[in-house]
């Protein structure tokens, strides 16, 4: 992403914006402040980010507004789930303080997808304040989903090719639709990005792919396994990023920051702890997430007393799909290959309990 000049971030392209219905609305209705020709006065009382509220976008976009408000992009409920499951109620206030300092810029507002670059990259109007129906993959989506999704999808991790869909010139929106991004059709309140059926599912598009012994296919690996035994990614995804030990702190001046101590590339097949009718696979790729018992010790002692309640190796759907991967080379790439599966040997001793439901027993490697 090319950096923007400070003026460019706030420059309105009067011609383009003039073609936009929203230019009929007073600036101050969305931004606050006052329409006067004085820099200081004009910005007094200005809202930091235009939020999705019933009064602003939801006033007219009555279909999108309310569901987007309940969507994970707005609530970040996925983070609450990941933290609170590992904690206890008396620690919630300290964790909330931590989240207020470190997670606020992760909430995606309507404007982060349709008007500006997100705060995490310093904001800046994407097309002169024109409201774009289709978000920008590189300036909006991957400005937030940078280090994992972007690097995997674009093939930026050394030695790992880009996603086959990227090479077919597909952008995020071909798979992640307006309805999904607006939280429409979500089955009740969402608590995690993997609630409900896969959205999208690989077979939504690849509806000609059949698996299992009765499958009409030449591909032996497809006919040797059932669709519900292995997630497609077990064969079609490859080496991805795993993160270790996120720590959050503040500088002496009170500026919050976080660091991820380390990350490494790897590919591990583990057991699916999310198993359901919607996600029946027994085996899935799993990714190490950056959390440790003392990740938030800056905000209090022992804030994650139930650390072992949730795995640190999580169900993953990496964005580096390939037709041919190291796994697809021979049957023995997987069968009897301990290295590829997440076992006691791969997992740090201190994290074994947390991951007991994910670990594949050395005696039952298929």
């Amino acid at each position: 992403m090319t950096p923007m000049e400070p003026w460019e971030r706030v420059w309105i392209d009067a011609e383009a914006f003039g073609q936009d219905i929203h230019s009929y609305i007073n600036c101050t209705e969305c931004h606050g402040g006052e329409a006067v020709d004085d820099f200081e006065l004009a910005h007094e009382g200005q809202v930091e980010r235009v939020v999705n509220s019933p009064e602003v976008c939801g006033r007219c976009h009555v279909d999108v507004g309310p569901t987007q408000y309940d969507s994970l992009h707005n609530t970040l409920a996925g983070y609450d789930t990941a933290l609170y499951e590992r904690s206890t109620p008396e620690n919630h206030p300290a964790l909330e303080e931590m989240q207020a300092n470190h997670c606020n810029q992760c909430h995606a507002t309507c404007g982060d997808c349709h008007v500006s670059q997100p705060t995490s990259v310093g904001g800046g109007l994407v097309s002169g304040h024109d409201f774009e129906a289709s978000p920008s993959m590189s300036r909006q989506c991957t400005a937030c989903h940078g280090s994992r999704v972007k690097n995997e999808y674009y093939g930026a991790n050394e030695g790992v090719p880009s996603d086959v869909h990227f090479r077919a010139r597909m952008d995020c929106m071909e798979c992640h639709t307006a309805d999904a991004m607006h939280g429409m059709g979500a089955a009740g309140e969402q608590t995690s990005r993997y609630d409900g059926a896969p959205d999208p599912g690989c077979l939504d598009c690849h509806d000609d792919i059949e698996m299992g012994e009765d499958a009409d296919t030449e591909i032996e690996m497809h006919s040797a396994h059932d669709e519900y035994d292995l997630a497609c990614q077990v064969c079609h995804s490859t080496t991805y990023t795993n993160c270790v030990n996120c720590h959050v702190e503040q500088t002496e001046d009170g500026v919050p920051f976080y660091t991820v101590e380390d990350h490494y590339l790897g590919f591990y097949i583990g057991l699916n702890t999310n198993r359901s009718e919607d996600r029946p696979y027994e085996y899935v790729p799993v990714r190490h997430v950056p959390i440790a018992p003392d990740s938030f010790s800056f905000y209090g002692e022992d804030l994650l007393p139930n650390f072992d309640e949730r795995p640190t190796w999580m169900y993953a759907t990496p964005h580096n799909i390939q037709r041919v991967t190291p796994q697809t080379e021979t049957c023995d790439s997987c069968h009897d290959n301990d290295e590829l599966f997440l076992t006691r040997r791969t997992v740090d001793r201190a994290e074994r309990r947390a991951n007991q439901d994910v670990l594949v027993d050395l005696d039952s490697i298929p």
Partner: protein
Amino acid sequence: MLRPRLISALVAGGALLMAAGIAMLSSSVGGVSVSLASPRLEIEPFEDFACLECHADQQRLSELAVEEEAPEALSSGPG
């Protein structure tokens, strides 16, 4: 300034009922009403020219807009 593409699209979609003589960038402005799935909404006439004029003026913005300190630059590692 009329906006033919937008206006014809909206009128065709029944989304926008036009009051006569609306032109944001000219000095005479009227009100617009929009009816989406909700009851009709009145939009106040556009008056915030002071904001628009400054934000469309690259020269003034170059003088006024300065690089903010970005505390998030301290954070590191894949998130």
